[in-house]
């Protein structure tokens, strides 16, 4: 099949010029794209020193991973990843960043020696993991491209204990029971975490002034109004209600 050169040129932006479009496996391309974004962003997380940038890179990495999930046919898990990981978890992270974002702590430099050691050890770990991943021939088989069945409803039914994807999938293995109990356990776990986190993070009434208060009293309170200093010494409540009150 021949293609109009204009079309081919349009696609040149993808860096795959001169390729017969019909031969392109778009799925592979998208995979490479998302995988590259995810891995690069992950490495950027390691490389960055600024906490907020780390958070941004992490979001990018996680979102790209969600894309990978979509590509793998796990739409529900991908959406879940976006919703909870990228949305919830990272909003929490940003909270933490803001609350602790005093200038000295926003960027704590990692030590060079640490980086070198971590690099060596990480390389060894990566090598081990990649070797392990590639060592099984079945995993290296190219994808069969069977259209993945819609997963949301079976997943939801599985979570309430009914497996509607029963035995007929080709070569599908695994127990044929639902996940009602794990689901409930996770629910209770989340509740416990909620309560525990609220308890841990609550402002304690203490007679002895906190170190942060001592720090704040040492430094001039005018620093709060300093335009360039970011939220120094501000607590969550005052941030939310606005410092101008």
């Amino acid at each position, binding site marked *: *099949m021949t*293609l*109009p050169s204009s*079309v081919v040129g*349009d*696609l040149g932006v993808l860096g795959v010029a001169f390729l017969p*479009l*019909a031969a392109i496996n*778009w799925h592979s391309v*998208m995979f490479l794209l998302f995988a590259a974004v995810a891995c690069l962003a992950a490495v950027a997380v390691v490389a960055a020193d*600024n906490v*907020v*940038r780390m958070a*941004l890179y992490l*979001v990018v990495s996680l*979102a790209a991973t969600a894309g990978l999930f979509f590509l793998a046919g796990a*739409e*529900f898990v991908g*959406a*879940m990843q*976006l*919703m909870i990981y*990228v*949305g*919830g978890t*990272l*909003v929490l992270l*940003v*909270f933490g*960043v*803001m609350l602790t*974002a005093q200038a000295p702590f926003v960027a704590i430099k990692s030590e060079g020696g640490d980086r070198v050691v971590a690099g060596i050890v990480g390389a060894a770990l990566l090598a081990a993991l990649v070797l392990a991943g590639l060592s099984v021939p079945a995993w290296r088989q190219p994808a069969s491209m069977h259209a993945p*069945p*819609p*997963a*949301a*409803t*079976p997943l939801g*039914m599985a979570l309430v204990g*009914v497996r*509607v994807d*029963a035995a*007929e999938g080709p070569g599908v293995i695994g127990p044929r029971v639902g996940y009602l109990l794990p689901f409930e356990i996770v629910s209770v776990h989340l509740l416990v975490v909620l309560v525990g986190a609220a308890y841990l993070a609550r402002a304690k009434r203490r007679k002895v002034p906190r170190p942060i208060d001592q720090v704040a009293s040492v430094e001039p309170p005018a620093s709060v*109004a300093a*335009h*360039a200093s*970011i*939220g120094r010494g501000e607590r*969550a409540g005052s*941030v*939310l*209600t*606005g*410092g*101008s009150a």
Partner: protein
Amino acid sequence: MVEYLTHTLGLSGTLAWTIAAVVAAVLVLNVIAGGALVFIWAERKVAARIQDRLGPTRTGGRFGWLQSLADGIKLLAKEDLMPDGADGLLFKIAPYVSFCASFCAFIALPFAFDVVGLRLNVAVFFVVAVLGLEVFGVIIAGYASASKWSLFGAMREAAQVVSYEVPLGMCVVVPVMLAGSMDMVTIAEKQAGWFWNWYLFHDPFTFVVFWVYVTCAVASVNRAPFDLAEAESELVAGFHTEYSGLRWSFFFMAEYGSMFLVSGMAAVLFLGGWNGPIPIATLLGWSEGTGESAHYLVRLVGLANLIGKATLGVLFMMWIRWTLPRLRIDQVMTTCLKYCTPIAAVMFAGAMLWQVLLPGGLMPGVGRPGGEVREGWLEGPGGRAVQAPAPPAVAEIRP
């Protein structure tokens, strides 16, 4: 669409794919960008009418049609400022993050039966999840601006959006439960027929849930009276205090895009989607097999229906914005946690009970075409769940 291009117009497959993709992308982009222009003008006029004045009248004729365009040109021409202490990368990337999130969400929003970017079986979930990403741009912008007003605005935004995602999710789950699917196309199809088939009128609980959804949607897109993030009376302009020029306009496009998106979602989930209040096509005897022109006419009517409903939703938000005073942050939180969440939870339970006790609604079968269609699986002859036959062919714009 691809079939149409290949078979009717005789284009090659690759070209057909490409054209279809471009059409879809352009459609979405235009909805957002062009829609933003229209909506900004409309907002000015609506505000003016509500405040008993005229609004823009000069640019582009009597009604000031071109006011938004003129503003856009002005913004393009403006100097792009960045504060001295700002984090350059984050400052620059923040508007695009917001806009991207808003734009991505349109992928899964169906405009008509097969006019949909990507028919996902978890479309509702996807849209809500992606919409939640928009807040990221706001937070990054607030942080990167190195301004305390911006930071305050961002923090408020974060708190508000995270909180309102809970009742919003609960409201969204109600139509999902009634339809038995998270596929927005399926959900809209289920409401075909007369307007009393809309989920808004399915039962009293859904009627209440719709209004809770409206409240939460307004809050989650940061529109007044929930626009704490940019409260100009306290925070100058909130998270976008330091932005100017085109970057600032991206925030606005994202905002209007989100408004349209949540309105479209409301239309699909509660207001019958592309099904009009009166099933004209059915009354006229048009159906899938009637003929190609009728087929496309039906699609066009559906498209108009949905866009009209979404526009009405946007106008409704404007009406609210210029009518209600802004809440305090504690009032915003109270509204969410003490009212919206419990009401949504109770309504969810009520709708569930209603569905169990009166599965067919109050008027089962009246004006409802076709049988029940459930996504993914059906009850087989042996009472065992089996895979449903593949869904009807849709315009596949799969990358």
